């Protein structure tokens, strides 16, 4: 039994990626007393885009302008995809709720009606996404209209290459040019500049003025200017607007490799906003032990190496992610869920887990392994019944989806988080 401090709450959320954050938001906005644990990291890998659904069927790589139509097609072809358990209306509403929250926290998002927008990626390829950070919106327009455009890079910002983007897109975009600036004052001994330090620098007005004056000579006929997503940490959409006005060109941010500033912005916005809404955040901490009391409440021992706090919760939402986040673990013969040892829908023998070609359009079966749930998003056992009445799961740990290939990661994270919180509420009521 736990001897140290015990924190009482209605709901404990395990995981601090997008799904865990969204679940905490929905719970808080329903007035549920909520505790959240997790090892920060999930969000810093985020590009900032909120995908809903982009590619289906994978075999042919068909891309959908209308994500809602794609979800309907998906439901027909893959009836056990988690999306099939969500009402279209509630999925839409949950995304709107998250976007409204982010807007309030200074991260406004835009979208093109009911449609996906085509985005420039850090590689110069393009991909469909649904909600786009306002700072990137001019890029959507530029990619569509292809006006004379300058892509700007910074020497030392290693993982962003203006020339690579221009090289990849240049064949179909004659007016696309690139230029690298020596800009940061904060170059490390290794000649590197970190994105988050640049982002903080950009919040200093003098630095922004200097950027304007250094870009101007290279502007020529450019009507649009693409800049890696380092334009400020907290008021980036205002910085983009200021820059656009000063340069007389439509400035837009382009996503970067992790650690990405848009990911950090999301992380900070959630942490700030969730704390304000009364969610108790324990980051970084892992759930290291668990048990159930005589009433079926969960007791979670959390800490970094050994449990130093205990949480007593009526219900638990597991949003622990997949392999990278350690929600799932692959032994060399079986994929396991790491905390509750929940049954995992297996992808067959190990030789079936991954295909011979990395880029095989069908995706890799291991990425569809995961937790199977009932209509209330409760993990189920072999008999089809819930393993626990009060344990719910959401996000990428769920089985029968391939968010990386279907481009459905954010919609999946948010939609299933909302459903899991609703299920908990009805259970608790």
């Amino acid at each position, binding site marked *: 039994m736990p001897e140290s401090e015990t924190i009482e709450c209605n709901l404990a959320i395990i995981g601090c990626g997008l799904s865990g954050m969204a679940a905490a938001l929905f719970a808080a906005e329903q007035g549920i007393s909520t505790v959240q644990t997790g090892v920060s990291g999930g969000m810093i890998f985020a590009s900032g885009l909120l995908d809903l659904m982009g590619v289906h069927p994978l075999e042919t790589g068909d891309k959908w302008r209308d994500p809602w139509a794609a979800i309907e097609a998906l439901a027909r072809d893959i009836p056990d995809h988690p999306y099939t358990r969500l009402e279209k209306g509630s999925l839409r509403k949950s995304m709107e709720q998250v976007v409204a929250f982010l807007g309030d926290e200074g991260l406004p998002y835009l979208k093109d009606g009911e449609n996906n927008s085509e985005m420039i990626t850090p590689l110069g390829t*393009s991909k469909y996404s649904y909600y786009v950070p306002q700072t990137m919106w001019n890029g959507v327009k530029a990619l569509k209209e292809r006006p004379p455009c300058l892509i700007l890079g910074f020497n030392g910002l290693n993982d962003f290459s203006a020339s690579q983007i221009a*090289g*990849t897109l240049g*064949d179909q975009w004659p007016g696309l040019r690139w230029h690298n600036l020596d800009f940061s004052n904060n170059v490390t001994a290794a000649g590197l500049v970190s994105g988050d330090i640049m982002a903080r620098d950009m919040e200093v007005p003098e630095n922004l003025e200097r950027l304007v004056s250094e870009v101007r000579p290279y502007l020529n006929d450019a009507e649009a200017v693409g800049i890696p997503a380092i334009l400020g940490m907290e008021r980036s959409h205002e910085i983009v607007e200021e820059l656009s006005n000063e340069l007389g060109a439509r400035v837009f941010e382009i996503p970067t490799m992790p650690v990405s500033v848009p990911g950090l912005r999301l992380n900070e916005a959630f942490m700030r906003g969730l704390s304000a809404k009364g969610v108790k955040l324990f980051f970084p901490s892992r759930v290291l032990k668990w048990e159930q009391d005589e009433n079926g409440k969960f007791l979670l021992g959390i800490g970094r190496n050994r449990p130093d706090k205990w949480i007593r919760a009526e219900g638990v939402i597991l949003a622990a992610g997949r392999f*990278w986040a350690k929600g799932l673990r692959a032994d060399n013969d079986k994929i396991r869920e790491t905390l509750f040892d929940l049954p995992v829908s297996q992808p067959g023998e*190990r030789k079936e*887990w991954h295909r011979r070609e*990395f880029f*095989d359009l069908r995706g890799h079966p291991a990425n569809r392994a995961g937790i199977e749930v009932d209509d209330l998003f409760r993990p189920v056992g072999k008999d089809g019944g819930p393993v626990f009445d009060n344990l719910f799961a959401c996000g990428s740990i769920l089985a029968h989806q391939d968010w990386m290939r279907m481009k459905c990661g954010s919609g999946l994270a948010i939609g299933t988080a909302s459903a899991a919180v609703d299920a908990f509420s009805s259970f608790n009521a």
Partner: protein
Amino acid sequence: MHTQALIIGGGVTGTGLARDLALRGVESLVVEKNDINAGASGSNHGLLHSGGRYVATDPGAARECHEENEILKKIAPHCIEDTGGLFVAVEGDDEEYAADFPQRCSKCGIPCQWLDPKEAREMEPALSTRVIAAYLVDDASIDPFRISLENIAQAQDLGADLLCHTEVTGFEKENSRIKTVHLINTNTGEEISVEPEQVINAAGAWVTEVAALAGIDIEMLYSKGTLLVTGHRVTERVVNRLRSPGDGDILVPGGTVSLLGTTSIRIDSLDRIRPTIEEVDLMVDEGSRMIPALKGLRYIRSYAGVRPLLKMDSGLDDRSVSRGFMLLDHTDEGLENFATVPSGKLTTYRFMAEKTADLVCERLGVDAPCLTRTEPLPSTPSGMWTEPALGPKKWIRENHDDPLLCECELLPKSSIESIVRSIHEHNGDLSLKAMGLRSRVGKGACQGTFCGKRIAAFLQETGQMKGAEGLDDLRAFLQERWRGERPVLWHSQIMQAELKEALYCGSFDLETHGGGQE
């Protein structure tokens, strides 16, 4: 074009021969249909044998190994880590084989020191407590990429030339001699004719194809061997299982990692050689009997190579077919200026080159002694970046204004520039894969996730790749890495693979952009 010696094949044999001939004043042209060490020369353990492995099955080869081991340690110390090696038997192994080992070594002149198993475990704490016999020998680890790169570098300094991506398409014969050799650049389609005085077929697993073009029949056997790369170095020394050679019974240190191998699987075709999950599991099982920790370790990748073996009607299994040196003089088959080196070992590459060069010189009427037995192999910039420890050491000393493009192996921008120069010197085709053959690019834990993109960007930025070339090359490189990653995707490495896919597919949608399925 005219040359005294046309060498077909740019592996350790071909490049070693080019150097040997160059030191004797004979000019040569090396043509390689793929790239330096693209075949067996680049997919082996990197083991400089003491000879101990062959004392029971092939004493002749064992003796050769021992002699060459001593020579190479003197002439090419910068390509070798003199680790020493152990032979260990574990409970259940053939005790008679173990008992006979020292005597067999001594018959072959191979130094071998008996160790108390307890002492052996003190030297190598990772060894199993079930070790029942142990001997210390002179095994070492050798960098086969560096050996080939240094050999060809000195040969080129002395006037030899190398054409990568250049394949033989036909021979024209006249009066029992090859008069003209037709070549094609497989990238550009450009056709070249060479009139050589002598032709040496050192095409490794592909000697049969080359010889057939000259109307000569050579029957070969192909045995695939798969190896595994661990995430960190497990032992200080080479560790061999003291038994008749079998699967997963050698662990060789390779700088910061260890290499576990191999399997031996007869194959009929040289296409699509890839390591399999069954082989990986088998080796982990077998290897863990010597070193139990091999069971729970992180493996970064696997790779497979092909042992070319000359077919002899002996009924022996593939490991027992002599891997000793052989030289086929085709005079009796009606060609006076053609010879084939059908098979051999990394450890004895210099000796093969010496004997082949002797034949070439005799035929050319050149009277010059072999110098490679004593002449040190110079260290050059083109061979520098294959060494795992070098990156960090050099970078920490000279990092100013030289950003890192590879964080796993600590390769700075300047190293990439130097590797690009080396590719050009070899008339190679600039690609990430070619850079991987000449350096540690893509070989660290992330398997190209970050360095692949950065180096592709660097090539684009410096105008060396244009338009969509960079993207296509990056795709090909990631696929190439995947072949080796796929069989080891569990524990930590499946996490890495997920990160790679989240970026390249989730964020960049690269799977639907360009490239074809293999």
